[in-house]
Structures are given as C-alpha cells and as structure tokens.
C-alpha cells in the first residue's frame, strides 16, 4: 500500500508491504524500516522499528493524525484533494485570528492598516496568569483589530484580521 502524508507542509510518501504476520516493511524516502506493532488500546501503539522500541499515542480526526512520540506532538495530514486546494486558497486570503482562551488584552502592538510579517506579534493577551504575544500566521496587512487595550475577551472572539 502507498500512502502520502503531509507534515509541516512537506509531503512524505510511505510504501507499506506486509512481509509476514505482524512484520511490515515501510519505505520512507530512500530508507526501509521493518516494523512490528502491538496495539495496547485503540490509541496506544507499541512500535518496534528495526528493533527499536517506540511508545506512541495516535488520534485521528478530520483527516489528520495527531501522533505523540517521546513527548513531541506531530500533526500528520492525510489531505484529500479538495482540502488541499482549499488550504492553498485560504492561505492567500483574509484570515480571522480568534482566541481559544479568554483573557485580558495587555497591549496592542500594531494598528489597523499596518503591514505585518508572518510570525510578527500583533497584540499581547494575558491568560493563565501569563502574558502571551499573539502573532500573525501570515504576512499581509492588518485589516481589523477587535478588542481595545485593557479590555477582556471571551474564548472564541476575534482578535484581528490579516489579509
């Protein structure tokens, strides 16, 4: 079986061939791996990759695997055709940045109409007793800033729009 995954916007192609029971050869790039698997539960895997042991937690929803290995989380996408097109399009379109956490707006660093680079901080939100810089996920122009400095925002409310 051949599968194509996307991780951090890079494509990875895997080829899986069952050699004998519970022994799958995985080809990833130029390398081959011999893999055997024990399912500890639906979400917990004990993988043996070329003799090395990995404890893995894996979740699947909306065409994305969340894979947790040695304390790190990887979001591995299994994009369908239309979804990839969709993402590519919205990437160049207007983006509304919302907050997942309620908190207090400590500072607003840019104004409406300012240009912004990808990764540049737009405002500072205080939540869980910490101040957090909220950054723009893409370069563009700040079209709108929702809250005022010093105000409280609810979870899910708009922080700013960038286009």
């Amino acid at each position, binding site marked *: *079986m051949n599968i194509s995954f996307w991780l951090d916007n890079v*494509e990875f192609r895997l080829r899986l061939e069952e050699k004998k029971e519970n022994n799958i050869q995985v080809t990833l790039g130029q390398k081959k791996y011999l893999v055997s698997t024990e399912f500890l539960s639906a979400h917990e*895997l004990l993988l043996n990759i070329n003799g090395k042991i*990995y404890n893995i937690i894996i979740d699947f929803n909306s065409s994305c695997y969340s*894979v947790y290995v040695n*304390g790190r989380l990887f979001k*591995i996408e299994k994009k369908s*055709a239309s979804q990839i097109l969709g993402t590519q399009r919205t990437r160049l379109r207007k983006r509304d940045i919302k907050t997942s956490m309620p908190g207090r707006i400590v500072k607003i660093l840019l104004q409406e109409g300012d240009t912004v680079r990808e990764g540049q901080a737009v405002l500072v939100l205080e939540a869980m*007793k910490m101040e957090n810089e909220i950054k723009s996920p893409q370069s563009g122009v700040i079209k709108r800033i929702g809250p005022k400095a010093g105000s409280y925002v609810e979870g899910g409310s708009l922080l700013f729009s960038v286009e």
Partner: protein
Amino acid sequence: MKKMFKKVLVANRGEIAARIIRACREMGITPVAVYSEADKKALHVRLADEAYFIGPSKPSQSYLNIDKIIEVAKRAKAQAIHPGYGFLAENSIFVKSCEKEGIVFIGPPSVPMEIMGQKTHSRQKMVKAQVPIIPGTLESIKDEKDLQLQAKKVGYPLLLKASSGGGGKGMRLVSRKEELLSSFQMARSEAQSSFDDPSIYAEKYLEEPHHIEIQILADNFGNIVYLGERECSIQRRYQKVLEETPSPFLNANTRREMGEVAVKAAAAVNYRNAGTVEFVVDKDKKFYFLEMNTRLQVEHPITEMVTGVDLVKCQLEIAAGMALKFSQEDIEPRGCSIECRIYAEDPENNFLPSPGKIVHFRSPGGGLGVRDDNGVYEGYEVPLEYDPLLSKLITWGSTRPEAIQRMIRALSEYQIYGIKTTIPFFKRILLHPKFFKGDYNTHFIPELEKEEDGSGEEEKVAALIAAGIKSYTESKAGPPLRSRQKESNWKLQGRLRNLSNRL
C-alpha cells in the same frame, strides 16, 4: 509540649494543595480542601478528607476571598490555614483576619511579611542588619530630577524596579543615559497598573548574574537554620523554569556565608516559618540580597530531596508552636537534586498557554530518585483560570550527572497527551553542553532560544511510520473501496501540487 492541629484548611489548589494535603494525612491531621467552580473535580479535592465549595472560578471570588475562606475554616472547625504559595500566601490583611478570628496562619506574622513585601523597606532593613544589598537607592525615586541624580550615583547599566513589585513587572534595564527618562516613565506606569503603586527605585545591574536562594526555617524560640541553596538562574521572562541544588557555581565557602547571611536577614525581621532569601550572585561570586519570599517556595522539593527534611511538616510544627527538631549541624545535604516545572504551554509556539483535557497521562514519578509533584490526572481538564503549572518533576542523584541523566530518563517516560507541555523544551536544556558542565547564568535561556532546535528527526520518522501503520491497519479492517481511494491520492495530490504551484 504543644499539640499538633487536628484539622487544617488548605487555602489553595493544584499541586501545592495536593502536597500540603498529603503532609497533613501523614501527620494524622484532617486536611480540608476548598474549591471553586472550575475545580469541582480537581486533584486536591479528590485527595482531601473534607472539601468545601467557595465560589466562582475567578480567584478574587474564591481563592482570594478572605471572608469566604475564614467562614469555611470556622464552619469546618479548622484550627489553622495553610496558604500554599500565591493567592493569599503573602497577604498581610489575611494574616490579620486569621489572627482576629483565632485561626492559626501557617506562615510568618504580619509584620515581617509586610517589611519583606515592600522592596525599599526591606533594603533599608537589610542594610541595618549588615546584609549586603545590590548597590542602588534605598528610597523610591522622588521625581525626574532625583532620577538623574540617583542614576549618576548608581552608574550604568542599571535596573529600575517597582518598590512594591515582583515577577519582572514595572522593571526596566537602562544601558545608557539617553534611555533613562522614557524607561522611568514606562516603569512607573506599569508599576501603577500592576501594584497600584508607581514607586520606583534604582539598582546597579550586575553582569552575568546568578539567582541563588537560601532556604531557611525559623521557629518561635529564636532557632533559625539554613538548608542549603537553590540555583534558580534558568529563567524565562523572569519566571523560573528549572532549579537545582547544590548550585554548580558556588563553592563551600560562599555557600556557608550565604546561609549565615540568610539567617541574619530572617533574624532582623523576627521571622518565623519556612522562608527563602533570594540573592543575586555576580560572576566573582559576590552576593547581594534581592528579596525574601515569606512562604513555601514552588521549588522547595529539591531542598527536601537532599536534606531529607519535609518542609511542609516543619511549617505545621512551627505554626503549632513546636521547636525545630534539629539544629544547623544536623543538616547535611546529600547528593544533588533538579526540578523541572512542567507547564501547559507550547514551547514550539512561543510558550502560549495550552489548557484543555488531559486525554492520556503517565508519570515517571515513583522510580528510584524520581519525584513528581503534580496536580493533575488522566481525564482532568486543565482550567483556563489559573496558573498553567501541571507538574514539578524532581530527580535526585548521588552526583550531578546522575541527577541530570535520571531527569532525562524520567522526562522520556513522561506522557501527557491532549494538551501541549514544556517537556520537549527541558530535553533541550538538559542535553545542552553548557548546562551539563554547570556553566550557565540567567542569560542561558534567552541564548538557548536563539539556537536552532535540531532534535526530533528520529521522532518524526517514528510518527510518520505510526500514522502509516494505523492507516494500513484501518484499511485492512475497513471496506476495500476506501483503501482504493487512498491509493489514488498519490496521483491526485501530484496534480494538486502542480496546480497550487501555479496559483
């Protein structure tokens, strides 16, 4: 002989409430928990013998609500209240309320608490007690004219600090004269909004500074002992991230001198309770009093690991009017201990908080030399309203390398899934050659953050293979049609890549 309390109310939540509740249970004291709306299912409630609801999630309406907490203490017939750290732990109004109601506050009396809470007051007091302080002003700066005068005396670079401050708020580093006025104005306004007091004072900025603190214990009978130091220079945005004892930077001589000075500082304010005297130590190992924390410290466990002293039990005994059971000579730290503060924060995304449900939780705590003071469990939903500290992972080793390697091993076994945590960040610190050599100061993390994080390649491959295996297993179980569709994705995605490249 004085009698131990029968019942103690723990006016806190999270890991520290769990820690105190366990100490009470081991002393035959009935621990009483209090909880807010967000904490109905919290670990500290589950561990307590009794638990009382105290109001909405907002701290000001529950954990900071003095009247409510006193009322519950009276209703539950608790003889004493342990405040933990944070919330009401350094609130002298609360201490006075307890005193008025005849409830024992497990902490210092209100007077030393007030002196140490006000930075310029405590600096003056320390000067009198011949405790070295960082060169700078003893009074708050009066006005802009005074500012110029004092800055000239102190010299550049200097730090402007809030007199009522803490935690880096209302603080500014001034490198040149040109920055002085604007920095002063910003510091003042921040101090006003954070502490309701615009007072600012100036301190000399020390090069390559270390933050090192001394743990002390003081009883009602004038006995004061120090229990070694904690090296707290691994900080991010003025927040401690990792602590260790002993400090790899100190020698035995400086260590003893600092201990003796810490005892002097505590004696100068008639201190009672566990307490921590914080120092800044410069590159020449000269040390200066920074502040005193008049409460149990977050990082107290590493001191317990090397001394064998249970600091919370000592606090309870001191508050019950008992004398310390040991003297300075009895305290012989053994080995080394490290603490990693594991936060619900995303280290790959500027340490943004990451509240939410812990779907999977497996702690390495419990192995030889591995302690885990946590406040969570599998299935628990980390609330938005409070500090994002999930766990303090602590290791002990007979040598520093052993403690470090044990910490690396323990971190590799720690599984918290469902929210982001700082676990991967600690691996970067611990595996850094500068850290392993013990050659670091407060600049360590800012410098580390500039370095590329090269790790994680092996995990990436494992993650991709895992996703492949999972996908393969599902395709074998599911209808054949679906797996055919998957195969055809290759072609489709090729087309799409071409398409998107043209957009």
